[in-house]
């Protein structure tokens, strides 16, 4: 079957529609917009804060075409991958069918994490004065003892359910930060401290604590985050939350 002439090339097309199509084709992002986008992708493009080499074998070799954006990358690379983008990207991975030409669905994977997940921290020992919200992330020394004493809980492995809980917690942030925090706890309880979206959960929890006026708890949780994921792309966002 032969493709029909495009409307823009068809002399019978209405002038207003022709102008509209031409204007649509002619729209391009500005250089500043592209630089801003490149800066947000800094970790993936090999900028500071990222792994510099891509993940899962993707070769990273900044091309000359990007030379003009490298300075911007250096300055802005840690703008990082936003939570919304991360969650939505996971949603696409988890929920969307592949186009016919695409490979089979990949394994669910964290979007914003560029380092392997850390070992699961143990619960703090009894009597340690740790805020409830920090308990699961506080590095506890007697890890071996705690693990020996308590069987390791079995966490759910369900990326779609994880995403659902996180989405609800993020949606609740503005109107109900206590609810958002509760959902972050639920996420941790169900999917574990080192869940696929653990970093995103922690960002929500820190955001909720800030909104609740619990600055000290927010900072403590942020410190724990930084210690646990020192190269995370979310650190910039956390810094902004705490400003």
């Amino acid at each position, binding site marked *: 079957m032969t493709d029909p002439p495009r409307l823009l090339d068809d002399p019978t097309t209405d002038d207003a*529609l022709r102008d509209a199509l031409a204007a649509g084709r002619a729209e391009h992002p500005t250089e500043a917009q592209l630089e801003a986008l490149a800066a947000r992708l800094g970790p993936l493009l090999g900028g500071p804060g990222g792994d510099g080499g891509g993940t899962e074998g993707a070769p990273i070799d900044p091309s000359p075409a990007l030379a003009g954006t490298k300075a911007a990358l250096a300055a802005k690379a840690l703008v990082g991958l936003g939570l919304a983008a991360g969650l939505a990207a996971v949603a696409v991975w988890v929920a969307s069918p592949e186009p016919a*030409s695409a490979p089979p669905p990949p394994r669910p994977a964290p979007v914003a994490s560029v380092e392997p997940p850390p070992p699961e921290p143990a619960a703090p020992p009894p009597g340690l004065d740790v805020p409830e919200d920090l308990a699961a992330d506080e590095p506890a020394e007697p890890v071996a003892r705690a693990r020996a004493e308590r069987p390791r809980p079995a966490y759910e492995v369900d990326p779609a359910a994880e995403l659902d809980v996180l989405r609800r917690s993020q949606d609740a942030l503005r109107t109900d930060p206590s609810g958002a925090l509760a959902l972050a706890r639920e996420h941790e309880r169900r999917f574990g401290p080192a869940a696929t979206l653990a970093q995103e959960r922690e960002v929500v929890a820190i955001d909720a604590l800030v909104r609740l006026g619990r600055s000290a708890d927010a900072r403590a949780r942020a410190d724990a985050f930084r210690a646990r994921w020192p190269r995370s792309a979310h650190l910039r966002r956390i810094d902004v939350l705490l400003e």
Partner: protein
Amino acid sequence: MHAAAEPGPPTFAAIFAAHAPLVWRALRRLGVREADVEDLSQEVFVIVHRKLPEFEGRSALSTWIYGICVRVASDHRKRAHVRREQPTDRVPDERQSAPQLEALARREARALLDRALDALDDDKRAVFVLYEIEELDMPHVAEALGCPLQTAYSRLYAARKVVAAEVTRIAEEGR
């Protein structure tokens, strides 16, 4: 005599450099508001980066990326909190220079296009945008969308009718 080195797979940075404008424009026409297009472009490239090692080259890279754009935009539009863009492009009363007037005319034309595209469902919109604006061939449109070629043609013809009617309606509304 040395054989010429085989070109390696494109790097992510090269893909970004080559496709960022295309992704941006496609997302806009697929219904992503200007305020959200940077976020969504980022999302597209995060997915491209993750899936690149699995890209087998059975389709053109740009076709593959367009498919990702369509899914990301569709997912975005389905979210409850996404509002439709309110066109604000109106010619101000004060006098404008010729370049300003041209720029305004282009913005108004784009606003008209987006309003007409808003009358389409996601499936028809994707076909119309990829064929009429991004200028993919129909087999590639079908490939990007993962639908049979005949289905893509049907959607294109249906979309054309809707868009033409909507442009006429908007024009009459403005008279």
